[in-house]
């Protein structure tokens, strides 16, 4: 179907041209799923874009090689001829569902326009075809959805719309560039299931780009592993997993977190009793966001983001907070970090945050540091990273200028960066490096508690593994407690001592890692665990049951608070909400 031979893509930079894809050859058969795996920056996306002839202009170009689709060599086509191929014969789904749809055009418009561009169908027929496509990706009420805009849909639905768009014209080849990286596990499961279904129905060939070996195991027929722009290994999925030949592949597979392998951690959860010297104690935390409306802009609705959450974290302990997108994890974290107003009690190091003066609060701030989800977004892009890491010291008036610099250098080395990188800017680092800068920054003040909000979700597995190791190491060394927020159950299983599962602003299950993972009681917890793809092609799961309804909204009218769940101890501190 698609054949690539000797493809080289080069990018023009400051210091001349640089090849980012070198001498890549592959073939894709009809109805086959080919996964391209590899670390970040290895040229996966560039390969995909090269096939589509959508390389970023004017920086990148195909320097040699051919891309053959059937009889046509795509590399020789002009823009106009290429327009006819794109969408019609090769379709592509991009990494970011949030930004890949045009925010100002309705779903319907975006679906029908490519149909109209490639067929002679009347607009009514195009509309019908669009509805069909939406139904095919199992979007309910497809008819009325056509009128909606992307921001009115959840991330998972947006990605499904992207898939519908790609599939509406029944292309021969579908390229999906990390289609699920940005999604929740549950949604990821649904999307992958969908791709499989569609492939079965239409016999589409799929190139699936991912760094998640779980996804690879789940989906691929064949796998290509790339590194530094080159293919390091190619083979059947089972072979790759069972008998990796290249060192890099082995390394990659070793780094993959797997559920049920988190035994490496000492079981502190059960041994540490609830004492008064908890690092953090959260009791009946409520956070609501008022929505205004009405004639005078009065408050008439409230988002009940966090509804009566209680937990505590001891020194040396890692508490994981898991749950779907929008369930209130980040809001809980923000309340702890003092970023949103809240009701209830938060006690840090024995001091209740409410009722503290300005200076005391600043002092408490030293004890709680936060690492954000997106390391890039949380670093001021206009500051040098050395200054960023030194900033907490400066603010709290610690150390002289020279000392600060030396301390920062030490911190850099501690998190595995070199001190001479201090004068660079955030964008000059890779994602993993940036996350390490954030960690260095959080460590600068020697805090007692670090809140890590989805801190590793965006990283590729090898980097993720390194960051997780670092976190564990630091915990051993300094006794830091973590509040670890994630939706990746495998990661959670790997790092946490105790786990709290959140749903719609409330905790539905909480217990030690073993209690939650080996004996999940709440149906929602079960579902979360089930959704995690297993990185072993031999253990492909049965079909993943899709939820048909949307997640209920935490937004409610004023005076109608959501019902409060009560947690029941089912033994050894394993708390489960009655459902």
């Amino acid at each position, binding site marked *: 179907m698609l054949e690539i031979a000797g493809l080289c893509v080069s990018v023009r930079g400051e210091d001349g041209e640089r090849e980012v894809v070198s001498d890549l050859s592959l073939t894709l058969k009809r109805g086959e799923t080919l996964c391209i795996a590899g670390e970040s920056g290895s040229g996966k996306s560039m390969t995909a874009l090269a096939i589509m002839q959508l390389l970023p202009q004017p920086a990148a170009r195909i320097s040699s090689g051919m891309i053959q689709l059937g009889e046509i060599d795509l590399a020789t086509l002009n823009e106009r001829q290429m327009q006819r191929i794109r969408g019609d014969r090769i379709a592509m789904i*991009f990494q970011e569902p949030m930004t890949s749809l045009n925010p100002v055009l309705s779903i319907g418009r975006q679906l029908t*326009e490519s149909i109209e561009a490639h067929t002679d169908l009347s607009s009514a027929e195009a509309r019908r075809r669009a509805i069909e496509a939406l139904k095919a990706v199992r979007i309910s009420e497809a008819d009325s959805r056509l009128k909606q805009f992307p921001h009115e849909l959840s991330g998972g639905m947006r990605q499904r719309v*992207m898939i519908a768009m790609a599939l509406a014209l029944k292309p021969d080849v579908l390229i999906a560039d990390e289609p699920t990286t940005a999604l929740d596990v549950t949604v990821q499961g649904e999307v992958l299931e969908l791709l499989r279904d569609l492939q079965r129905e239409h016999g589409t060939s799929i190139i699936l780009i991912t760094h998640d070996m779980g996804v690879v195991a789940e989906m691929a027929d064949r796998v290509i592993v790339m590194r530094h722009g080159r293919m390091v290994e190619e083979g059947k999925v089972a072979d790759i997993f069972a008998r990796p030949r290249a060192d890099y592949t082995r390394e990659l597979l070793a780094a993959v977190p797997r559920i049920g392998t988190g035994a490496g951690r000492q079981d502190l959860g059960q041994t540490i009793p609830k004492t008064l010297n908890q690092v953090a104690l959260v009791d009946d935390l409520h956070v609501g966001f008022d929505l205004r409306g009405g*004639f005078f*802009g009065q408050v008439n609705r409230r988002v009940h983001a966090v509804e009566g959450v209680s937990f505590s974290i001891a020194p040396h302990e890692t508490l994981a907070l898991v749950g779907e997108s929008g369930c209130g994890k980040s809001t809980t974290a923000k309340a702890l970090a003092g970023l949103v107003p809240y009701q209830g009690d938060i006690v840090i190091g024995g001091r209740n945050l409410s009722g503290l003066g300005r200076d005391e609060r600043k002092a408490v701030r030293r004890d709680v540091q936060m690492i954000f989800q997106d390391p890039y977004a949380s670093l001021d892009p206009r500051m040098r990273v050395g200054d960023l890491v030194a900033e907490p010291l400066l603010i709290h008036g610690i150390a002289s200028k020279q000392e600060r610099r030396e301390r920062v250098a030490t911190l850099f080395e501690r998190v595995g960066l070199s001190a001479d990188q201090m004068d660079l800017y955030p964008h000059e680092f890779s994602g993993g490096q940036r996350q390490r800068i954030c960690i260095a920054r959080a460590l600068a003040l020697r805090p007692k508690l670090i809140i890590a909000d989805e801190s590793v979700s965006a990283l590729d597995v090898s980097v993720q593994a390194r960051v997780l190791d670092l976190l564990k190491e630091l915990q051993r060394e300094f006794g830091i407690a973590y509040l670890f927020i994630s939706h990746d159950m495998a990661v959670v299983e790997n790092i946490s001592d105790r786990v709290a599962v959140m749903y719609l602003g409330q905790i539905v299950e909480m217990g030690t890692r073993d209690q939650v993972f080996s004996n999940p009681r709440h149906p929602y917890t079960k579902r979360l665990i089930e959704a995690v793809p297993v990185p072993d092609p031999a253990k492909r799961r049965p079909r993943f049951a899709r939820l048909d309804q949307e997640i209920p909204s935490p937004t409610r009218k004023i005076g109608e608070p959501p019902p409060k769940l009560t947690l029941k101890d089912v033994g050894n501190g394993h708390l489960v909400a009655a459902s």
Partner: protein
Amino acid sequence: MIPYLGRRVMQSLLILLGVSLITFALLYLLPADPVRQIAGRSATPQTVENIRRQLGLDQPFVVQYWHYLMSLLSGDLGRSYIQRSEVTELIVSRLPASLLLMVGAILCELLIGLTMGLIAAVKRGTTTDQTLMVASFVGVSAPQFVVGLLLLYVFAVRLGWFPIGGYGTWRHLVLPSLTMGILGAGWYARMMRSSMIDVLRQDYVRTARAKGLARGAILFRHALPNAILPVVAMIGIDIGIFMGGIVVVESVFGWPGIGQLAWQAIQRVDIPIIMGVTLVSAFAIVLGNLLADIVAPFIDPRIKLR
């Protein structure tokens, strides 16, 4: 929507009230005596005093403002000191011309400015881009009086394509709109360029290309509506700038709008007219901003009126 409008209208009224108070106060402080303007050169001091009393200008500031406000509420803008006509009548007779010019000018500047910005963004970094950006600067820096007279001389006197000034048909409208538009076009071209460059970098533009859409569809259907939002917000500000330029352009082209009325009133300290025109222009600006805010959600559905 309705509650939102209600709130905005209330805010707007407050703004208008503020404008009227400040204007009235400033005019009160102005070291020029309107009565002596009315009375003219041969009037005796007694005549001057008589007129002052008749107009109530001997009253304390607060009383004067109160009276003004009260008659304003009944829709009465007062009577011009010099022209002796109802200010409402004067403004109503001239407003259509100004509005027409405003529409023409805004169309012109959007047409010229957005096209220039669009081309420059698409051809970013090329000579075309640089030429267009220099041109936009010339537009911003050129005095309107000179631009107006040049256009008039070339296109009306020399080539005879358009009438030399006046008001009536669409042909009268072209040159004044163009003169007004050239200034704004420079601003819009720069704004459009940068916002378009930004949008063209976005993922959804790449998605559109991946769907195999034609270049035109991508530019106009996908990129333009996204890029135009900051421009729409600018139109509100623009009406304010427009009010400054209207004086010059209307006088060059003999355009019977409120700019000329305002100019004459300022020269002769004709306070009721100054007040009237100020309120009308403030109203236009407030309305422009309101419209820009109301239109925004239609262009970008993510925006909620709040």
